[in-house]
């Protein structure tokens, strides 16, 4: 059977796409001219296809070539002439590729469609006051959300494709003149060097950006809120947006960022300072409270006030477990309940709470398996953990470590553990940024936005904890 050029091309790409069910081709005969079209049904909007491509072609009475197609016939804003080597990429991007035996050029028309949700408030960072928009999976929407906040020609979006199979679009975003060039180049270098089959979410590229990917501690910032990303970029940070992920990464990162909340900037700064102090206390309680309680109970009971000591002695008498095993058991119970509540359908949530709180907790105490002080201390630590929810995974691991240290070595274990962790944190300096800045080392300028937050009027200069170019913030 003799095939013409259009049929040959269609056949070739059918094989390239392994006769995939959603791969579609159309042949349109216009007099002696034959026009071919290739596209993915799953990625194209049928109405848009019909209105902007098919109907105009049908109604057209003149000879078709690339120029008339682009300028007169097709009723679409996103039309471009592409090279043959880019046909597959364009089809995968949800475009219709048009070609003919009567002209050489290949025209690509964007009729992409896919299910997308509205930029609603992210469940991970709700605010009482302030913007409630959150990033979505569609990167174009995310770019719009940022552009709307930073009306500046200096806002730059650079795209890179990562993943041999997924070919995912990764966008490096920064404000030119504010972000440090070396940081931008370093981010670009790291992203370009990624060799991976697929990037399903931004978390996939996170470990490639970290200096120590095996570290327990978070070295890259992440958020779902465009206002946070915009404010970080205004400080000179670089944002990394990954297509199909609502989580945007930011670098450089310091621990203090997780102790700050977007709420802090939309309320009175005195109140924000108080809340930040409570957050750091919450963080410390979450990490060391169970271990500290064990250390006191096992090694240093003589420093406890007498009344408290009597209460503990009364409630722990006759328990089948040692205090160390008791705390580990309660901790395990809480962790199981937490994991269950994450994965269970919401209508079963209430049942889990009842089972967890009443049956396991209350009955456990009444049955003499666990003691009330142990339950209270562990529950306090677990609740305090959510004063800094961004560090939840790190704190949970540290809790276990400090339970072991406090239970086996007493206060000395807790102190040496803390010194060890702080020493380690001080070695983290990705992108020349000290992890515990502005407190270690002390950077006086940045203390204005530290635990004690000053008014925006007082923050005249940009933070000095991490590299940035622009110095002034306000006059």
């Amino acid at each position: 059977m003799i095939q013409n050029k259009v049929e040959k091309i269609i056949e070739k790409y059918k094989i390239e796409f392994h006769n995939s069910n959603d791969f579609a081709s159309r042949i349109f005969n216009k007099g002696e001219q034959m026009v071919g079209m290739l596209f993915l049904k799953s990625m194209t909007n049928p109405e848009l296809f019909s209105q902007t491509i098919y109907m105009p072609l049908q109604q057209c009475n003149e000879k078709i070539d690339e120029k008339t197609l682009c300028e007169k016939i097709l009723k679409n804003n996103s039309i471009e002439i592409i090279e043959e080597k880019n046909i597959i990429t364009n089809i995968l991007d949800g475009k219709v590729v048009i070609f003919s035996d009567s002209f050489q050029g290949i025209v690509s028309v964007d009729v992409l469609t896919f299910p997308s949700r509205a930029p609603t408030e992210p469940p991970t960072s709700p605010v009482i006051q302030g913007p409630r928009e959150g990033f979505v999976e569609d990167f174009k929407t995310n770019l719009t959300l940022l552009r709307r906040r930073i009306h500046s020609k200096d806002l730059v979006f650079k795209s890179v494709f990562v993943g041999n199979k997924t070919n995912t679009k990764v966008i490096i975003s920064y404000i030119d003149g504010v972000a440090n060039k070396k940081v931008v180049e370093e981010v670009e270098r790291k992203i370009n060097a990624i060799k991976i089959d697929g990037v399903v979410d931004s978390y996939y590229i996170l470990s490639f950006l970290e200096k120590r990917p095996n570290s327990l501690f978070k070295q890259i910032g992440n958020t779902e809120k465009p206002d946070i990303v915009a404010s970080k970029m205004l400080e000179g940070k670089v944002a990394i947006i990954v297509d199909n992920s609502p989580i945007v990464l930011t670098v450089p990162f310091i621990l203090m960022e997780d102790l700050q909340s977007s709420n802090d900037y939309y309320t009175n700064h005195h109140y924000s300072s108080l809340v930040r102090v409570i957050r750091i206390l919450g963080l410390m309680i979450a990490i060391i409270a169970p271990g500290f309680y064990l250390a006191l109970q096992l090694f240093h009971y003589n420093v406890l006030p007498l009344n408290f000591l009597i209460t503990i002695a009364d409630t722990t008498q006759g328990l089948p477990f040692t205090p160390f095993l008791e705390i580990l058991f309660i901790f395990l119970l809480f962790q199981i309940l937490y994991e269950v509540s994450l994965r269970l359908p919401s209508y079963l949530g209430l049942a889990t709470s009842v089972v967890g709180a009443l049956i396991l907790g209350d009955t456990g105490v009444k049955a003499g398996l666990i003691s009330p002080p142990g339950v209270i201390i562990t529950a306090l630590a677990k609740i305090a953990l959510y004063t800094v929810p961004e560090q939840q995974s790190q704190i949970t691991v540290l809790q276990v470590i400090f339970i072991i240290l406090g239970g086996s070595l007493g206060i000395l274990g807790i102190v040496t553990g803390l010194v060890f962790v702080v020493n380690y944190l001080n070695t983290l300096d990705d992108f020349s940024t000290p992890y515990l800045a502005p407190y270690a080392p002390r950077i006086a300028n940045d203390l204005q936005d530290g635990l004690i937050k000053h008014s925006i009027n007082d923050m005249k200069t940009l933070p000095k904890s991490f590299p940035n170019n622009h110095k002034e913030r306000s006059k």
Partner: protein
Amino acid sequence: MKSISARQTGIILFLTILANKILLLPSIMYEKTKADSLFVMMLLFAFELFILWIFFSLKNKYPNSSLKELLQKSVGGKIAKALIFVFLIFFLFKTMLTYSVIYVYLKDLVYQDEFGLLAIICFIPVVNHGVVCGLRAMSRSFELFFYLVLTGVVFCLVIAFFTNISIPYFFLSNPKDIFNTCFTHFFSFGDYLILFIFMDKIKFDNQGKKTILKFVGLGITIVLAIFLIFYCKYHDTAFMHNNAIADLLVFSVQFNAIGRLDIIAMVTIMALGLFQMEIFQYAFCESFVMVFPKLSLKYAIAVFDILFFIVYFVLIGKYEFMIMVTTNYLPYFSILSNYILPSIIFALSYKHKKELKHEKSV
């Protein structure tokens, strides 16, 4: 090179001034010179400031040179190594002394029962890790814990101050006793020698010098205040209280509803002990690498750990033996390491500068 700031240097000095002088020293000194030990301390601090003065002069002349470079240019490689070797020995014993003091406190007051293995499990890995992390990471940690330690120490002082205290009798000892006590406690001083070991890593200007002096002044003031309040509180029974800062709290009136407060002293002493051990071990390792340049820092840490275990079985935990060694034998060594050696370095550097000037003029 990863350098440290004047503030961080000041904090390192503050912590080293405090660590081994606020536990055992006040009671040991009291045995010989009673409350006049305060004057002994003042005298020893004055000597200590002499070392600081030498360091500042050297830093002015050679802001970017390391001790090894400085000595090599003046006296050649072998003598330079021999001189640094003295520092190496000094820091080894200093770390031991710090560990012994903390050990005695923890064994007597906190853990009571068998504590040896527990202490080693706690201290050695953390101190080694601190050295591996490097001077910059350590100094940043000290910066973070500085206010915590300061609050702890000041809290102990304030609580003790508001209990029954009275001014002790001064000027009961004769000058000979005072100078004798000075001599016997030389080894508890010489903390500023650490500055010579990493002098090339310290960056500061004239303002920075003031910052360092501010922290040194604060440290000295606190130590003297602890001595004074300790003697005001215990008078003639002071020699029985081996853990000064802790005893200031332990024997204070309990505040209603707060309970025992000695946990604050406990945490402060543990942190101070760890920090001082870290910085002295780091100084040991740096000296080791200067003396044996072909070996890396990891070898230095391994050698330190081996020596530590050997000395641990000889010295640590044996309270009387430890005091006898530090007050009878080590003072002679301390005179060499604390005062003669820095003076030699200073003189050599001066000579080296003259030679350089002469060469230039020729």
